[in-house]
């Protein structure tokens, strides 16, 4: 997290810390599922097979402490069928689900986040929070950090990508966030964590996106998987109740 601050206990109780092909993030759904980015399990540039070790940690803001709490074994992984590991510029379908072997017991430091149900969560300028144990400025984090970012204008993001001469695909199943003039962004190690928005009307926190890709860190916009477009798929995979 670039330009962020330390989280306090209970701020982002859904935050998962993963270590699969390196550090990553995730979010707790229900009491048995971890939402994350597909590329944390099947990295694009490494051409690696699915790793046998999927270490998932939950329930603390301190890295050492979260690891002391013990890992949560993963029963199975579901990658979205649209994800293409072999296309480095295509992060379409960058979403995955991990089913934990055992249900977790919820508490103040471990709670799930909700999913979106309408487009208003993607209105330009809507503020959200991104959290993670990823790189901060030029150091790797040992505590959970967060940054508050606005949903950005799609056209502005597209324009920005053109200036960067990017071949990356910015599809309808993604949204962008941040501001090129402000050094606030997610970064490596934050992938898989969620863009969380507070719905003041219902007083709940909703995950509207998954930290997916960007060009550098803190120099422009960040790009996120648009969760609203995958809610049906998620419900189908994990069941309505979970």
């Amino acid at each position: 997290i670039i330009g962020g601050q330390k989280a306090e206990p209970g701020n982002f109780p859904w935050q998962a810390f993963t270590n699969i092909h390196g550090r990553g993030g995730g979010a707790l759904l229900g009491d048995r599922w971890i939402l994350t980015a597909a590329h944390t399990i099947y990295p694009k540039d490494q051409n690696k097979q699915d790793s046998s070790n999927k270490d998932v940690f939950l329930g603390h803001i301190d890295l050492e402490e979260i690891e002391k709490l013990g890992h949560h074994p993963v029963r199975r992984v579901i990658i979205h069928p649209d994800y293409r590991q072999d296309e480095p510029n295509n992060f379409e379908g960058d979403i995955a689900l991990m089913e934990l072997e055992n249900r977790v017991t919820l508490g103040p430091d471990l709670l799930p986040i909700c999913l979106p149900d309408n487009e208003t969560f993607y209105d330009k300028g809507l503020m959200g929070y991104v959290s993670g144990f990823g790189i901060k400025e030029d150091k790797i984090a040992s505590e959970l950090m967060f940054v508050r970012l606005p949903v950005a204008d799609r056209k502005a993001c597209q324009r920005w990508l053109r200036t960067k001469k990017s071949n990356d695909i910015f599809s309808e199943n993604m949204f962008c966030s941040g501001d090129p003039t402000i050094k606030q962004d997610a970064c490596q190690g934050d992938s898989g964590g969620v863009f969380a928005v507070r719905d003041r009307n219902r007083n709940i926190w909703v995950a509207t996106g998954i930290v997916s890709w960007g060009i550098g860190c803190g120099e422009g916009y960040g790009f996120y998987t648009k969760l609203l477009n995958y809610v049906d798929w998620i419900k189908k995979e994990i069941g309505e109740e979970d």
Partner: protein
Amino acid sequence: SIYIPQKLYGEVTSPLYPKPYPNDFEETTVITVPVGYRVKLVFWHFDVEPSEGCLYDYVKISADKKTLGRFCGQLESPLGNPPGEKEFISEENKMLLTFHTDFSNEENGTIMFYKGFLAYYQAVDRDECEPQYNTVEGSYQPRCQQLCHNYVGGYFCSCRPGYELQKDGRSCQAECSSGLYTEPSGYISSLEYPQPYPPDLRCNYSIRVERGLTLNLKFLDPFEIDDHQQVHCPYDQLQIYANGRNLGEFCGNQRPPDFDTRSNAVDLLFFTDESGDSRGWKLHYTTEIIKCPQPKALDEFTIIQDPQPQYQFRDYFIVTCKQGYQLVEGNQVLLSFTAVCQDDGTWHRAMPRCKIKDCGQPRSLSNGDFSYITTKGVNTYEARVQYSCHEPYYKMKTRAGSSESVRGIYTCTAQGIWKNEEEGEKMPRCLPVCGKPVNPVTQRQR
């Protein structure tokens, strides 16, 4: 003598009949019928020279060493001594018919021709049961000592109940050692009752009726068995046993009380000594079906189905419990209960009890708890518990339209199961609550 072959009927005629009979003739015809029969003979035609005292020609009938008559003349004529329509019957099975003619049948110088006779005989049954005259004793003696049965061609003797026909086929001796009575009711008495009973008796009368029936004995008057003022029944005794159980020993003139033996097997032993002239005893026995005591519930929760005013052998009753209670026999829970009235008047099972249904400890709820609405720790019928989830992290899953008032409330039902009004037996579920951090991020500096 001419012996006619033995047969049941036949005819005898004079020689040359119906032509005139010859002179100077005498012949005796011996008529025989089978033993057990008598000979009965009648004359259909009779035309023999009449004479005073039947001196010339005559027919003589004799049987049993006696002459039954000597006859001559014509049937419708007064001359001579015609037999008329008389029936001649022998005592035994033989009769002799002698026909005698003299040297001529001349009357006033005229030769007369007489046709002779035609007689029919038949065998008639001899009633051997008629008392026979005993010449030695000079009186009539019965053929059998007790009972005589005549039949065509014979007879036989028998004895009254309690007596046995002896080898001589006519005398009877008392035999009462194995009388068996199996009818639902009847009468039993000492021999010769109400005449004095014979001496030296060893009588055993057994009554055996179907299982499930009980025998009632009622003695009738007169009741007389030899007794003694000071010593109990020293001479003659009547002992009564029911299923081997001794009901008493009786004598004297006081008839025993009526007995409800509660048994389907009764034995009466009657012993008499060598003398006495008491008239004996007689009883009437009846049966009635064994009854069982009226079933009674042991507690207020027990229901006896369709109670009957009376229960008898093979009847049964069914017991159930009020709602929320279950049948218990000892420590065992029963699914049902039936008791049958046995042949000894007892129920084949003792009355059970009804115990309140216990649903057991409520199941624990994952990520939740339960608390008792009713008395804590009591899990019996109509107990209620309230399930709740560990809020705010979990919330109870509800179906659309479910009532807040019954949510999570489970009642111990009559079936012994915890049930919710809407969810039934299904346990509630505590589902995670999303998006509600306990300590949401807040920022101060602007």
